[in-house]
């Protein structure tokens, strides 16, 4: 059974994006959180900041690693997950739910272009592990 929900799309840099209307919610995947280990800090942008598709919008840190976060869709940040300041572990415990990172007002039409569905992402992760 796939551990990746079907209601969203996935990027090659291991972010997920779920689009409802013109608002996209973005987080990192279960695979990404496992690779990172215990998340201790997440640096996120303020509401109002505007990013291009594929642009770095923040960083996520474990004890001994830092990973950049890339926005899978272009848009304006409408909300960052403030809860992560106190409970960054939510990214580990519930990466596809409470551990979401930002909500973005999508500015481009083809929001989900070039992204994978759950099955394709799972295959991609398996492929990466072999390489």
């Amino acid at each position, binding site marked *: 059974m796939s551990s990746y929900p079907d209601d969203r799309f996935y990027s090659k840099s291991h972010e997920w994006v779920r689009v409802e209307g013109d608002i996209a919610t973005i987080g990192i995947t279960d695979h990404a959180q496992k690779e990172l280990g215990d998340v*201790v*800090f997440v640096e996120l942008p303020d509401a109002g900041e505007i990013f291009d598709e594929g642009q770095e919008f923040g960083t996520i840190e*474990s004890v001994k690693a830092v990973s950049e976060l890339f926005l899978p869709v272009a848009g304006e940040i409408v909300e960052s997950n403030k809860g992560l300041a106190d409970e960054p572990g939510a990214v580990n415990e519930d990466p596809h739910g409470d551990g979401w990172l930002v909500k973005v007002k999508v500015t481009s039409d083809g929001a989900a272009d070039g992204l994978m569905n759950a099955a394709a992402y799972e295959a991609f992760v398996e492929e990466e592990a072999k390489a």
Partner: protein
Amino acid sequence: MSDHGNLTNPVPAALADRRRKSSSIFDAFRPGRKGVLLPALDVPAADPEALFGALHRAEVEGEVEASEVDAIRHFTRLSQKNMSIDANLYPLGSCTMKYNPRINEELARLPGFADVHPYTPEHLSQGALELLARLEEALVALTGFARVTLQPSAGANGELTACLMIRAAHVKAGAPRKYVLVPDSAHGTNPASAHFAGYAVQELASNPRGTLDLGELEKKMTDEVAAVMITVPNTLGVFEENILEVTKIVHAKGGYVYLDGANFNAFVGKVRPADLGADAMHMNLHKTFSTPHGGGGPGSGPVGVAPALVPFLPVPTVEGADDGWRLEFDRPDSIGRMRTFYGNYGVLVRALTYIHSYGNEIAEVAETSVLNANYLRKKLAPFYHLKYDAPSYHEVVFDDKLQAAKGVHNIDVAKRLMDYGFHPPTMSFPLIVPGALMIEPTESEPVEELDAFADAMIAIAKEAEESPELVTSAPHVTPVGRIDEALLAREASKPGSFAPVLRAPVRRS
């Protein structure tokens, strides 16, 4: 020492706690105590309130109140919670944890060195200046460089000093250039130092041997590249066999070759870095030249330079001869100062003492450190995976591939090693070896200590096979159990996490 498992403790818990619990002096000082007696004031007492008015501070709230005995007990007990080279082999790769001779300590503490102010007039500090000149001379003899600056405060500071000199040289020649090339196996300080000299860093991918790929270098070595930073032997403990071709390629494009001298212990007295075509190299006196690591410092990172970079050395330099030494500031192309005064002088005294101790036989240091590392490699190779099998010099980098199959990772091996009485190897790099266990025994270790370490590593490899939980739950007999560094980092990220303990001091009931 306590056991974090199930062994019963024969001492009543409440009393055992007194020895066992870690605490800071801020948790338990007693009001009214003090630990220093000053002579009676022999001039009229000034009135700070009258002199400073609104800028007067009445007290440093929260500061400690402790007697001299309190201080001695506290710091002696703290010391007992540390591992050290004096007690055991300390194979922290790339850190060269060799024996720190005590004659070095004695001589650095002579009042004629330790109690001399840096602004003492030159005619009253001739011996202090002479020591700087003599150390420069000795390091020139060992490296083949034209000159050596003793000013950099540590290895990373030496790297930055060299990057700034290289940049100044390019600027003088017309353009600063844009990039510095750094191999993917490099210490993290290399890219950071290049960045703080205003350069963008480009990474050089290593070849399957773990050394520099000449094709990759030729491709990336353009006339926009200011310098290449290379570690010899590299962080895998492998000597760059093609080093002479590498320096030729870089020089042909007008770039400089920077050698990271962190691993100088592998070839001191055997090879002069200038002969390899290096234009600059820092030396970590606290590694190769035996000055104490002191729980994190002080270090010292002198930089040797080829003639082309001499005009750019930091000021002041020491000039003169036996009839008079002086500080020279008038060097128009100098990059300027890297710090106050002249360097970590006390460390320099220790290093010169060490160099004199070996004198012209210093090559034995490199020979023995390489021999010891190879001995450990031979003993451990059947039990730990070696990603790159090129010949090892002063260190050998295994990894946890064989143990990971049982869920045991390098960090677990490291923690279990503590139970056997050894400090763990380096694990945070090289980045090209996931799960690295970088082992550098140094020349200081007697054969029985090498054997004991190897036996411990082999025993852990067997434990990883047979009872992996014993390893993953380690350490079991250290002063404290495994510390949850993730929890600490999460707590530390929260507001107010670093406030000193301002709680009420302990009172006797």
